[in-house]
Each structure stands twice: as structure tokens, then as C-alpha cells.
């Protein structure tokens, strides 16, 4: 996949131009600092203009950017003493979902997230972040463990969807997802989910029955991938762009529908441009929401989750 997104090409070109001039002044004894200063101003304006006004399809490209920070990146940046815990105790260890224990702000938490690969080899190992049933069962095992030790649970959502394959069906993909939905509803500890990339259908929701749901500014959350929607609606996956717009899958869309609690802002141009700062933005929100949820007792947490999902839906009464 290309690392430069087509809509940011004017920015890249201008950056190259500035680079060129800077190098030129270093090797030749000409003072171009005024020009460079001007171009830098133009660059800042251009970045504001392009990155500040991304349409749906541009956001999808950012959400899918090969360098976009993954669960592991955020685990490294947000948690200390992280210990990864493996396996569902039934069948295997699915590398498409990772999880473990660590501390956040000095307090123990359980962290679980979808894990994409950074290159082809790793993507094959992690089935492109598309879990099998054992991934969801590992996640549930870690959630139940968190409940026993009264640790809050933080889920990072980043998947195109649950893996569509023969083995996944044989081992009960449907049941694994469904079980997580029902069991997460009854957890007696705070659960916070953040969509960090793509939130694709039931495979994403299986880590998403939370007390607080946040989305990074350029992440998406949808019932079906834009390509899938396009092939159903227009019998052609090439209309993914149109489908993405029609399906209303961006963070502002979901905030408007009152499905998510808040949008976590991204570094200008996308989290991949400065993962450290991006993690800081997430940290601020996590501190606040863990503090709020820490005041609720076990029953209140379950009640809070119930009410949150109970009210979702748009209909009228005859």
C-alpha cells in the first residue's frame, strides 16, 4: 500500500520543494531564507486546509494508513509494566487480538486490542487483524480475569471484521462474537473502548460493549466495509467511496448518532504523523473517563452499559 495518500500530494510536493531549497542554501552561498519562510507559511496553510477538511474517503485512507499506530504502539506509549497474556485455553492463540495486563497512571488495568501487521509477513501471521473465534475467546478470558481482580478494561478496536473462513465457522465465529456481547454487558468493572483505526462490523463490536466508546478523529465504525456495501448496493466494489459516504461511518457521524461518547482529536494529518503526541491525546481522555467510571459501583456500571446501548436506534411511533 502506498504511504502517501493521493489527497495529500500537494503537501508532499511543497515539503519536497522546501527541502530542496534548504539543501541548496546549505551547499551554495545564497540566502533564500525569506523564500523558505514564505513557503513554510504556505505549507502550514495548505496542511490546515487539506488535513483540516478531510472528507469521508480521505478519513478511510488515514484509518487504513500502513503506518497508522496499532494496538501494540499504543500499549507501548500508554501503559507501563505491560505483560502480554496469550491463548484462549481451548484451541490456540490468535495473533489478531492481543491483550495483557499493565499499569495506567500507576493502577493495574487489562488491555485488549485487535492487532494488524506492519508488513506482509506480519499481516499473514495476524490474518490482517481479522480474528478467529479463539481471538474473541482469549479477549473474553482476559475480561473475566480483569473482573476477578477488579481491574478496568481498555479495548482498542482496529479490524476490518472477523475473519471469514472455513475454520472460523467450524469453531463458532458467530458464537464467539455473540458470547462477548452478552458477557461484556454484565462485566462488573469499567470498560472503555477506543476505535483507533477501522471498526468493522461484529468483529469490532465484540470488543465494543463498553461504558465509554471513543473514536479517534479519523477512525471509522461501520456495519459493513465500504467495499462490501458497494458490492451489495451497486454490485461493484469500485464504488467504495460512494458507499463510505452513504453509510455514515466517520467519527463525527457516530457522535451525531449518539453512539459514541466523544471524538479523540488526531495529530494534524493523522496519528501516524506523531504517534507519541497521539497517545497523549488518548491518555487525557482515559484519565478522565477512568476517573468518572471509578465512582460507579458494580451494579451502576452494568446499569450504565445497559442504558447506553438500550437507547440506540432510530424509529417512530404510529
Amino acid at each position, binding site marked *: 500500500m502506498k504511504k502517501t495518500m493521493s489527497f495529500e500530494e500537494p503537501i508532499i510536493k511543497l515539503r519536497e520543494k522546501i527541502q530542496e531549497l534548504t539543501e541548496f542554501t546549505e551547499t551554495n552561498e545564497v540566502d533564500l531564507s525569506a523564500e523558505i519562510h514564505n513557503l513554510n507559511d504556505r505549507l502550514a496553510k495548505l496542511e490546515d486546509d487539506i488535513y483540516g477538511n478531510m472528507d469521508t474517503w480521505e478519513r478511510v485512507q488515514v484509518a487504513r494508513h500502513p503506518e497508522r499506530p496499532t494496538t501494540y504502539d499504543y500499549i507501548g506509549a500508554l501503559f507501563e509494566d505491560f505483560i502480554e497474556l496469550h491463548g484462549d485455553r481451548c484451541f490456540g492463540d490468535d495473533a489478531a487480538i492481543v491483550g495483557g495486563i499493565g499499569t495506567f497512571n500507576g493502577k493495574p488495568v487489562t488491555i485488549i486490542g485487535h492487532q494488524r501487521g506492519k508488513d506482509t509477513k506480519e499481516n499473514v501471521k495476524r490474518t490482517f487483524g481479522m480474528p478467529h473465534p479463539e481471538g474473541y475467546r482469549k479477549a473474553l478470558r482476559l475480561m473475566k480475569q480483569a473482573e476477578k481482580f477488579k481491574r478496568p478494561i481498555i479495548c482498542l478496536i482496529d479490524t476490518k471484521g472477523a475473519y471469514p473462513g472455513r475454520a472460523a465457522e467450524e469453531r463458532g465465529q458467530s458464537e464467539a462474537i455473540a458470547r462477548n456481547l452478552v458477557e461484556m454487558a454484565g462485566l462488573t468493572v469499567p470498560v472503555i473502548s477506543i476505535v483507533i483505526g477501522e471498526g468493522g462490523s*461484529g468483529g469490532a463490536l465484540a470488543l465494543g460493549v463498553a461504558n465509554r466508546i471513543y473514536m479517534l478523529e479519523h477512525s471509522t465504525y461501520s456495519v459493513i466495509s465500504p467495499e462490501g456495501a458497494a458490492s451489495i448496493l451497486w454490485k461493484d466494489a469500485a464504488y467504495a467511496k460512494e458507499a463510505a459516504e452513504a*453509510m455514515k461511518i466517520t467519527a463525527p457521524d457516530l457522535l451525531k448518532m449518539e453512539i459514541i461518547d466523544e471524538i479523540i482529536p488526531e495529530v494534524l494529518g493523522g496519528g501516524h504523523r506523531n504517534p507519541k503526541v497521539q497517545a497523549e491525546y488518548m491518555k487525557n481522555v482515559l484519565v478522565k473517563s477512568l476517573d468518572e467510571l471509578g465512582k460507579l459501583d458494580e451494579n451502576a456500571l452494568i446499569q450504565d452499559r445497559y442504558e447506553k446501548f438500550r437507547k440506540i436506534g432510530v*424509529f417512530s411511533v404510529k
Partner: protein
Amino acid sequence: MLRDLFTGAKKQNAIMPNAKSKNDVPEGIMTKCPQCKHVEPTKELAKQLKVCPKCDFHYKMTAQERIDSLVDEGTFVSMDDHLVTENPLEFPSYAAKVKKDAEKTGLNEAVLTGTGKIDGNDVAIAVMDPHFRMGSMGSVVGEKITRAVEKATELGIPMLIFSASGGARMQEGVLSLMQMAKTSVALNRHSEKGLLYISIMTYPTTGGVSASFASVGDINLAEPKALIGFAGRRVIEQTVREKLPEDFQTAEFLLDHGQLDAVVHRVDLQDMLSRIIRLHTEGKAAQ
């Protein structure tokens, strides 16, 4: 000539009706089995719970037919028929499609819910109707099922859900996806009260419905040969590039793989449900 008897052309000219009329079973009066091609008077078929007398093929049932076949006569009281589907994403022609299916089926949405008695036992019941937008789940379907579960919890009675669905309803986008969570939080509460939930999967139970309430019954039943699965067969064939077994994603396949408690013939279903419910309610009374 003797030889003429064995030539297809002669045969067709002489006795057989042409190919087109062969497929044209009179609409309404007769019904032709899509599996064994047996033709049965529609009235007779209805008496046999829409099961082919020759090959046991289970025809799709409307929600009302299902209620009539299971619930004690005169005991069913429907719920939430007044909820109306909106078009939250402003999808072109969505409202018209829903309206058309509502007229066709006489239902307000793709599920019929209510309370009634099965063999004298009180139950809350939700029956999805695959004739309404392929039984897909949008806001109203999710809301009706959730309300039915809440009713069951409130009355302390078993919940029965008959699934028949192509999955989440695309035209309502992520709102449809969230109905999976909404029904799940209600089922969790029902379960926490120690109450029974029986899931009965019928043709077809796929996608978001399969991956939510349909798969988490205290007891999971299915009708013979019902298609049940998460991802579509074609999608899987494209990803794994291998030929899938003939019986892939059938009720029998799921039973073999430990995903179901039993596959139950439609004729035996009422008795089976009644026995399961009694085994749970009698146990309660004894406590």
C-alpha cells in the same frame, strides 16, 4: 417405432408439456418443492407445517404461520406493532422498500413479537420473518426483540426467539450493528435473573443475527438443513480459495461442530419446546 420411444424429442412432443410450463406450477393452489420437485396442494402443505411430505424440506414460514403452528390457539398477544421504521441515513428508496414489505407481510417490521402459551406454558416469543427485507435487523427489529426480552424478564417467563435473517440491515448502517449489542444487554439481564432463553435457528440465520442473540440461547436449536453462519459462503470461498463441503453452514454441520444442542424436525418442535420449558419451570417450582 420402438426406437422412437427412447428419443427425448419424440417424448417431449408426444407427452411432456414444454419446459416452461413444467416449471409453472399454478400459483397458490399447488406448491412445488425446491429440493425434490414434488408438487403438493398448498392447503395440504400448510397442514403439514410446510414440510415437504416426500423429502422433509422445511419451507420458509411467515411469522404468523410460525405463531399459529406453535402457540396455543387464542393466547398470542402481539407487542409493539406500532413502531415505525425511519430512514436515518436517508438511503434512496429504503422507505419505499420497507413500506412495500409491510404491505406484503402485514407486519410493521421483520419480526413479530408478543406473549402467549405453548402447551399451557407462558412464554414471550419473537419470530423473525424472512419475507420482510430478508429478515434483516434494523432499529425496529432490534427494539422489538429487546422489548420482548424485557417483557419476559419482567414477567419471569422463558424467552423464545426464532431467527430467520440475512443479518444486520445495511440501510441503517452502524445503527443496525448496535442492535446486536442492544439485544445482548437485554439477554444478559434476562439470564442474570436465572430465566430461560431458547434460540431456534431457521433458514437462514446469518451475519449479525447469527453473531448476536441467535447463538447464545441457554439451549440452541435449529430446523433441519437451516443455513446458519457468520460469513457468506461466497465471501469465504473467495478468501480461502478452497471448495467448501456441501453441507457447510447447515444445521447438521453446526451440530457436528458443537454449536447446537439439537436439530429438531418442525413436526416435533412444539413438543420439544414444551418439554424444555417444563423442565425449567418445574425445577423452579420445586425450589
